[in-house]
């Protein structure tokens, strides 16, 4: 907490903790709902990686834009998306963010600058670069950020995006959430280099933080976002973290040592944040209250989603294309 960029008050640290707790509670609930068959499809959880989404989002403004990936629940919630509509979407209900057409892998809220989770690995990077180009040309003062995993590093479009962002000095923050796994395979067996060297090859500023320490992530994000916003060009922040759950829920992780999973679960960013809070004098009761409040909030969102109306198939046709307009002459 020595850095001037670090959240220096208990109040700020509590905000970070509260946001992480909201992400964790949401994802633990999703795991249970998915196991019970209430939530269909695929879900990819980022349990154990909450410090990344929350620490980065804490440095972004409301109208900064954000491109996410398939493991994106935390990104969306940390960006401030409404929890009721989030759960409605995950349940496939009419009043979800995407009217039940997207689901877990496509949660988006353009009014919050959330350009969408994405089912295609690496696809968010050029979208963020394009968004940053628009910010620059329109003079909005906003920046674009993108979350991607180490598994995306093998995608050609990632390299193309690094090059374009640096070439055009665009206000984009690349956030590599390095959890060591590319789906079912250790990334070390798949990628010949690392994100730092890869970005440095394009002359991009880079930094590396302990992605399970929300204070460290928030401090790095605040420093780098300020530079990106000031027109210093793009930056890559590598957040080293650990994947606790499988690639998707239901993945038995037979490819992984039990010890590796235990180590990942033990390095819990929420427990670390709780220790930091206690160390600066926060009462345990305050932490417990946040847990209770969060559980109540998620309970309400789940109940609301369960009761939500089903989407109507014919309504979906309305949004394949935009409404017709009068032709211009």
């Amino acid at each position, binding site marked *: 907490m020595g850095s001037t960029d670090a959240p220096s008050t208990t109040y700020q640290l509590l905000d970070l903790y509260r946001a992480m707790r909201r992400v964790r509670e949401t994802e633990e609930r999703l795991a249970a709902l998915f196991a019970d068959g209430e939530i269909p499809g695929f879900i990819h959880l980022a349990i154990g990686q909450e410090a990344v989404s929350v620490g980065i989002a804490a440095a972004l403004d409301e109208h900064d834009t954000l491109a996410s990936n398939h493991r994106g629940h935390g990104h969306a919630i940390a960006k401030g998306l409404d929890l009721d509509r989030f759960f409605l979407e995950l349940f496939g209900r009419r009043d979800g963010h995407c009217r039940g057409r997207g689901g877990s892998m496509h949660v988006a809220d353009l009014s919050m600058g959330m350009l969408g989770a994405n089912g295609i690995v690496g696809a968010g990077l050029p979208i963020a670069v*394009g968004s940053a180009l628009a910010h620059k040309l329109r003079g909005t003062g906003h920046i674009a950020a993108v979350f991607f995993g180490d598994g995306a590093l093998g995608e050609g479009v990632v390299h193309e995006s690094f090059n374009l962002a640096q070439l055009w000095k665009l206000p984009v923050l690349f956030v590599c959430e390095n959890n060591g796994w590319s789906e079912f395979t250790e990334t070390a067996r798949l990628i010949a280099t690392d994100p730092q060297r890869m970005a440095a090859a394009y002359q991009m500023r880079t930094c590396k933080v302990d992605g399970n320490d929300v204070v460290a992530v928030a401090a790095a994000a605040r420093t780098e976002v300020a530079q990106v916003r000031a027109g210093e060009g793009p930056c890559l922040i590598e957040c080293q973290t650990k994947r606790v759950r499988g690639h998707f829920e239901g993945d038995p992780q037979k490819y992984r040592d039990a010890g590796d999973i235990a180590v990942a679960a033990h390095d819990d960013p929420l427990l670390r944040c709780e220790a930091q809070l206690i160390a600066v004098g926060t009462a345990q009761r305050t932490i417990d209250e946040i847990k209770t409040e969060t559980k109540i909030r998620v309970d309400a969102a789940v109940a609301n989603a369960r009761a939500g109306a089903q989407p109507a198939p014919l309504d979906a046709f309305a949004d394949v294309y935009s409404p017709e307009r009068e032709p211009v002459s």
Partner: protein
Amino acid sequence: MTEVRFGGAINRALSDALTADSRVILLGEDVAQPGGPFGVTRGLFDKFGPERVRDTPISEAALAGVAVGAALTGLRPIIEIMFMDFVTLIMDALVNQAAKVRFMFGGQTSVPMMVRMPHGGGINAGPQHSQCLEAWLAHVPGLKVVCPATVADAYGLTRAAVVDDDPVIVIEHKALYAAKGELPDPPTATPIGRARIAREGRDVTVVSYGGMVPVALAAAADLARAGVESEVIDLLSLQPWDEASVLASVAKTHRLIICHEAVEAFGVGAEVAARVADAGFDELDGPIVRVGAPFMPPPFAKALEDWYRPDAAKIVAAVKKAIS
């Protein structure tokens, strides 16, 4: 009316679009300072400057993804893909992102981007620089696909594509770039989704688009000398396509030919034929006949490419088959 070349009409349309709306930007390989591989964007860099008219690295996948992100953040990007064959490299951005965003995000937003790409043979460019792959794109819900045949529509569809709120692919036949034609003064936008009757006739309907329209008109002139009057329909838009105009013509002629330079199998002609066979079955007095390239990649050698590309003689033969 002003006589201009097809490529010049597109240049004028791009210039007018960039003038009309400051949100419009133009990105692509060699489009800015070099003026475009076919010269279509010549002068736009000088006129609109380096912020709005940008040369990009040879990174088609990122280029198209950048257009999606820019469109989601308030711009109306136009990108150029140097040859339609390279559309393979932007399929994720087009198919999984641009085409789906509006639907997938519940109608929150649209993706107002335009992609220009030349297709077709005639310059012996070989198997990777001559393909007509429009059926792939027309098959994707969320994309619009247009293909002008005349100077007026090269201008008009380009303008319409830029102001459209959805992703529009404008396919330009590269053999048409140097063709001259009349541009109305002032030039106007061409509505997307409406076909044009390029020649009226009572005996047979010949549906075509893009570079095949002048070929179909040449075939119609040949047939007229033999007493067969062809109605040539220029589709202009492939997705959405003007089914009503085609059905109305078939109701008059009772015979249908569809011709395109793309391979015949699984092409635009297959969709038109299937729809007319369904919705217009009672009007048909003969088999629907398609004219397209044989089921092989476009070959390089002049002797092979000339044989490969459908010509007026093949259309005449198809008409004779349909009316026999």
